[in-house]
């Protein structure tokens, strides 16, 4: 890990191309790493399910979990409802949101060849938030319009940032971040404008949602989240090889036979789907797409075939842990999960920057 943050992308890509010669070794490594991360995720989900504002008898709760509710021991019906109707859906939504944001972050970083590319910092989360608010204001409480409009908002923001960032000399990292800042602040003012038009109590619920709120884990939206996460992460993983080549630069990738425009569009679509649905269901949970892919790359290689699925699994664990904290530290009251991910994420990121 001798690479500094600035020229990280080229170093990684050299690794990636080298690794490409031993595809089988990569596959084996991917399976081992992802297997280990899956075990960790399951472990974390089980622990998270035993924690919450209401104390449940741990052994009975675990038995209920492992038997799918068939044998719930001494759990009362209320305790069972807390476990299966409230806590578990919320943990699964957290996992889905975490996986989505981390995989999207990893792919933006590869595609834009920028270690700082992250849905939240590029204004893509905010684009999805604007879409969600427009859906709420104009289409009411429809379960489907919110994710669809959020997807549209995320996609719009993605293209806007990309266009702004591309100069004649291509998209430099600084231009990209600057474009992200401009698009973010512009959309923030749109959000402020919309909230000002709404009445007082809805503002309160929106400020909570904007900072990331996972309490809306109703069963219907959970299916939407799971479906989009699986589709999006799988789609990005399938594009991992062209993404590896794109990290060499668009010109080189083109020479190596990558259909640059098409791959870019496909990655933008998949990542916008992941970010859009996550934001529609849980607000803007920041720093996940930045911190998690970095940690994954630091501890493995920069090969996207490994980074993208591994980041998804690690991101799921990260947000489940963060939301468990949000649910428990001031129980029975709650914190927005985005406040926790930023509290963990920002210092961790500074530490990563300093260490290099």
């Amino acid at each position: 890990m001798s690479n500094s943050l600035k020229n990280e992308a080229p170093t990684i890509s050299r690794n990636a191309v080298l690794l490409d010669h031993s595809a089988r070794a990569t596959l084996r490594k991917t399976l081992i790493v992802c297997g280990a991360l899956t075990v960790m995720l399951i472990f974390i989900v089980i622990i998270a399910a035993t924690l919450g504002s209401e104390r449940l008898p741990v052994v009975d709760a675990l038995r209920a979990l492992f038997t799918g509710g068939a044998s719930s021991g001494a759990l009362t019906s209320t305790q069972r409802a807390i476990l299966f109707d409230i806590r578990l859906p919320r943990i699964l939504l957290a996992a889905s949101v975490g996986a989505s944001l981390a995989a999207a972050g990893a792919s933006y970083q590869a595609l834009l060849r920028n270690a700082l590319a992250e849905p939240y910092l590029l204004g893509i989360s905010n684009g999805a938030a604007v879409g969600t608010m427009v859906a709420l204001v104009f289409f009411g409480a429809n379960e489907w319009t919110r994710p669809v409009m959020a997807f549209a908002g995320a996609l719009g923001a993605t293209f806007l940032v990309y266009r702004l960032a591309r100069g004649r000399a291509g998209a430099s990292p600084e231009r990209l971040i600057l474009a992200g800042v401009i698009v973010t602040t512009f959309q923030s003012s749109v959000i402020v404008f919309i909230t000002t038009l709404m009445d007082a109590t809805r503002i309160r619920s929106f400020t909570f949602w904007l900072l990331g709120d996972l309490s809306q884990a109703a069963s219907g939206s959970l299916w939407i989240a799971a479906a989009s996460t699986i589709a999006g992460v799988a789609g990005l993983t399938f594009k991992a090889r062209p993404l590896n080549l794109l990290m060499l630069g668009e010109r080189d990738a083109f020479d190596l036979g990558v259909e640059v425009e098409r791959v870019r569009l496909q990655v933008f679509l998949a990542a916008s789907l992941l970010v859009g649905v996550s934001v529609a269901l849980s607000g803007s949970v920041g720093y996940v797409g930045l911190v998690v892919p970095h940690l994954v790359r630091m501890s493995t290689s920069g090969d996207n075939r490994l980074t993208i699925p591994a980041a998804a699994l690690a991101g799921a664990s990260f947000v489940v842990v963060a939301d468990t904290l949000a649910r428990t530290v001031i129980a029975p009251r709650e914190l927005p999960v985005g406040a926790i991910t930023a509290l963990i994420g920002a210092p961790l990121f500074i530490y990563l920057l300093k260490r290099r």
Partner: protein
Amino acid sequence: MSVLCAFALLGCSGQKPTPTTETHEARQVIDEAGRSVTVPAKIERFISLAPNLTEIAYAVGAGDRLVGNTTFCDYPEAAKKVPKVGNTLQPSIERILALRPQLVLVTTASQLEAFTKQLNEHDIAVFVTDPSDLEGVFRSILSVGDLLDESAAASELVKQLRARSETVDRAVAGLAPVSVFFQLSGQPLYTAGRSSFVTNLIERAGGHSVTSDVQEAWPRLSDERALASRPEAVVMLSGDAMGAAANTKVAVALRNSPAVQNGRVYLIDGDLLTRPGPRLVDGLEQMAHALHPEAFK
């Protein structure tokens, strides 16, 4: 150098503008935030920054001297025609100054610090109310009446309101308290906590709030706690006062509570339950009727 500057600034802000008593007759009162406030003896022009204070002002007969209020102030009918200075959370300081009030009535819901300072610099008194129970509301009515030179009307009003609340007290006395979940908003879930006047109101109505032990006045409650609380009754707000449609649905976590199973979900006009003014007693009566219909036959 910069240290010196800081000291100079501290010195300035520490020096309170000395209350000038030479122009008009003035007096010192202590408001409900514990601040000592200098107010003119005779108030000809005042502004209210909260709907409950507007209602109190009209109820004690000082409505004709109200020169400004907020967009939330919609009762009584006359209050709608008074010039608006913004809403309770974001009042426009320029509008307030332009209306040249001698006194501004506020609740702790407003952002007080910076705001009070600016008004004080223009010799406008700021009186803060912060009732935490029904008795506190009566006290607010008496102090506002006193400030506006309508003490007699205020005492008479409080006497009537107290008589009505005592009728409720007698009716529910000795009855087993009904456990109540007060749902301020269903998604996300907000309720009334320990320091809210609604918690006190529920007790006065012969109930017991299942969230009375939660800190804060209006906490964001976890769904788990709501589900575990298993209330016998749910009280929600109707009317467009507090965000309408989103709130008239029972929170998901309460769908299997005894309250919902037994059809004991009550909608009460939000203006009667969320404004600590004279109509809070109407809210008390409606809640008591809902919780203990047997006591009012």
